[in-house]
């Protein structure tokens, strides 16, 4: 029996059951058939952000879930301590770019799949790069990187005149994260499910020790380490910045921490702990990364094909005490400046870019200063770096109407510092502008405005 199908069995033997057969517990747009399978192979382009513990798993999982057009972006090089979980890397790969090695290894094993590696920072890519993908899958370990991708993906989102998100502008994101035996997977459909910014409170603030404790009343080993790292280093090495990846620097901090610990009879300073505290090392193991990545890959397949319902919208996994999984349906923050419809502003055709920027400072919802402005993929004005500022400065005196190719309305993306005094933070928002007295403006276009 078992041998009967040996030669005939097709490579997509298992996946076909899911993609070719109709079902009742599926997504609303599910159209099973070979066409769906072939479309996923041919047209679905997926970006994996991060080629670390999650990224390696994600590339493998997606390549074996019917996707053939993958790209991966990561600025890191392979380190020895990656090898306990980043299974696409070998000892001889240490020092090579993660994205390149990961892409190569998966292509070697899964024929037909094409993976384009990008060995660079996520900020190095233009927005157009990100807009090219059907789905963006995130395997990251930093809040900052997540926020950046979230901002880019949300910037593509447009709302119709009724204030509803336009589906064709929605860039779905699937995000995973792990720490030790715990992890999470979530699906972000901007405008529908909460974006990172909506639920930024989910990330606990990093532990920071008060400087006076470090300087005056140290009690624990981490206090001694942080004293050496944050205070003593600067005292001794005037001007030289501490590099956590330089073993000599780390060794120096370790020996200083030991001296301080001895001075106060504080136990527990070790080299391992020193590294952990200074580099804020998050413990990581293969199994948790495998679980979370698999959940993310499965959700990516569902979004692309509709072959099942989707996770709605946040899964947590905890294997510390027994095994607990939980799905939480978080709701969007209606006021979210990142994924919301943004702020509506009516302008005269003669208003210059500079005048708009001044208005943003007066706008009570924003009180924004240090403003940079983009339209589509084009930068209209940028505060930094200085070269870019100089290049865009001349736009300030040009009328916005002209800068926006004389269309009666449009969307701008503005970034800057906003909020009431004492609560100011960096902010990015959409600005829906319309020009007075230009044909084509109807009242409904103002719906959902400020």
């Amino acid at each position, binding site marked *: 029996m078992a041998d009967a*199908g040996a030669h005939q069995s097709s490579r997509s033997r298992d996946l076909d059951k899911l993609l070719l057969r109709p079902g009742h517990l599926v997504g609303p747009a599910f159209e099973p058939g070979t066409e769906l399978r072939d479309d996923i192979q041919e047209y679905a382009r997926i970006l994996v952000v991060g080629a670390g513990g999650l990224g390696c798993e994600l590339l493998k999982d997606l390549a074996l879930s019917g996707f053939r057009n993958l790209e991966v972006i990561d600025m890191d090089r392979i380190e020895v301590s990656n090898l306990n*979980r980043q299974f696409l890397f070998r000892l001889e790969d240490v020092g090579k770019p993660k994205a390149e090695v990961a892409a190569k290894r998966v292509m070697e094993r899964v024929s037909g799949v094409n993976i384009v590696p990008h060995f660079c920072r996520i900020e190095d890519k233009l927005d157009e790069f990100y807009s090219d993908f059907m789905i963006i899958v995130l395997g990251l370990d930093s809040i900052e990187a997540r926020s950046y991708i979230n901002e880019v993906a949300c910037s593509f989102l447009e709302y119709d005149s009724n204030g509803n998100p336009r589906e064709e502008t929605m860039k779905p994101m699937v995000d995973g994260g792990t720490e030790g035996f715990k992890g999470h997977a979530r699906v972000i459909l901007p405008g529908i499910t909460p974006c990172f910014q909506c639920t930024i409170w989910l990330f606990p603030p990093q532990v920071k020790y008060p400087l006076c404790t470090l300087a005056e009343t140290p009690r624990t080993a981490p206090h001694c380490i942080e004293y050496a790292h944050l205070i003593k280093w600067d005292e001794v090495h005037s001007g030289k910045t501490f590099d956590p990846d330089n073993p000599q620097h780390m*060794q120096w901090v*370790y020996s200083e921490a030991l001296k301080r610990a001895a001075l106060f009879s504080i136990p527990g300073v070790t080299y391992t702990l020193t590294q952990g505290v200074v580099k804020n*090392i998050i413990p990581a193991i293969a199994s948790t990364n495998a679980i979370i990545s698999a959940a993310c890959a499965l959700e990516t*397949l569902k979004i692309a094909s509709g072959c099942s319902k989707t996770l709605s919208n946040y899964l947590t996994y905890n294997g510390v005490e027994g095994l607990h999984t939980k*799905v939480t349906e978080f709701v969007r923050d209606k006021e979210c400046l990142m994924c919301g419809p943004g702020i509506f502003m009516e302008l005269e055709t003669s208003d210059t870019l500079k005048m708009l920027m001044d208005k943003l400072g007066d706008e009570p919802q924003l009180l924004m200063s240090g403003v940079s402005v983009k339209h589509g993929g084009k930068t209209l004005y940028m505060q930094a770096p200085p070269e870019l500022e100089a290049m865009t400065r001349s736009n300030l005196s040009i009328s916005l109407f002209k800068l926006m190719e004389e269309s009666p309305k449009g969307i701008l993306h503005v970034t800057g510092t906003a909020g009431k005094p004492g609560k100011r933070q960096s902010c990015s928002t959409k600005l829906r502008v319309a020009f007075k007295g230009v044909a084509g403006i109807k009242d409904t276009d103002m719906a959902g405005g400020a």
Partner: protein
Amino acid sequence: MAEPKAEPKPEPKTKYDRQLRIWGEQGQSALEKASICLLNCGPTGSETLKNLVLGGIGSITVVDGSKVENGDLGNNFMVSESNLGQPKAKCVCAFLQELNDAVKAKFIEEHPVTLIDTNPSFFSQFTVVIATQLVEASMVKLDRICRDANVMLIFARSYGLSGFVRISVKEHTVIESKPDHFLDDLRLNNPWPELKKFTESIDLDTSDPVAHKHTPYILILVKMANDWAKAHNGKLPSTREEKREFKELIKAKTIAPDEDNYKEAIEASFKVFAPQGISSSNLKRILDDPCSEVDSCSSDFWVMVAALKEFIANEGGGEAPLEGSIPDMTSSTEIYINLQKLYQAKAEADFIIVGQRVRDILKKIGRDPLSISNDLIKSFCKNARKLTVCRYKSIEEEFNSPILPEMQKYLSDEEYSVAVGFYILLRAVDRFSANYNAFPGQFDGAMDEEISRLKTTAVSLLTDLGCNGSPLPEDLINEMCRYGAAELHAVAAYIGGVASQEVIKLITRQFVPMSGTFIFNGIDHKSQLLSL
């Protein structure tokens, strides 16, 4: 004090750094001593093993009798085009070996079912057997074999968008359960004499503002709990009103707005309200367990439990040995370090008494009094309040006579209905395949007939279990036929990830392994643990 020398450290185990931070050298050494047997190396089995090989497991033996075919290339990363027609066990083994040369990897080209039937003694050489994609009849047989041989066993199965993981071990005891949140052991309302004396030596109402704001909350609370008890016939705050009043009293002691130690004292005041003595029902259950009546066959764990029990009844005065560590808190360095030493000394004293009792018990039951190491006894004392015992029902018992009230509860609970539906259907498909030589929907064709056959099979299974009249959702039966026994890579990677995580917990004897049967729900991820 001589100046400490920082030894230069090119660490030998940098590769494992990120996991050593979780389970330490001891856990790692347990992994490196373990030998694993994998049955069936489809994606579920291969992915399980991959995660263990990366972590540096001692040795693996891959058992599979099939040859690599085209379909395998679509769901298993461990085989590739050049492997077509070759033994799957050999190919998977070779790939796994490539991942970590510290692991001893070998394979046996044989069908696991044959091995279970013809060579049961084969399994006794392993630390853990990981059995993937086995049907019910083989699971029952293998479970019996492993239980008799005292080999830990874990089952994992992926089936379409569903699957399960189930541990089967007679008894698994954990000393280092390392829970995330656990009330620290500070004895604020029950201080031992030295802590009491130390508290009395510190003047809470000192006029020195620097000393005042650097008095750790332990001392504040011990003192105030003592004062309260004196004024209330030896009782501690218990009603909400009393607790509020107690907090107000702390607040009233504050002399400056920036006294973090008093803020911490108010936040930690609930530790004063906690009952004295053994409060964890988990520990009570362990102390009351019949196994704590030890004889020469008792395991080290239970011998130590017997000693612990004696300690609590005698020297402990109702308390377990002191844990001996204190959390960080606002304090002057000197007082904090002295407090730390005080707690450590008490923990050490408790450990010495328990150690003596362990040796006495060992002598009494006719074993070498030194057969349990001091390190182990020390760890046991430190973790006494967190001890955990897991017991798993045999597969045969669960399959033949599951706990009916639980089953009924799951069937009628919306949160559980899909999970229990999958549980029943995962068993029904095995009966189906025993009758029809293929799984429902495994081959294309007459789907309607398959659906109605599976439904009949599931209904008769439910009747056999005594759950008549509990219909399964039609949609789910339909879904199960659609799956046609597909082993999807992403599902296999998830299930394999769960299985490997549980194996690590079993081998390292750290953290608490899952209980019951984990049912994976890949439709909306509302997976559940079923205790049947």
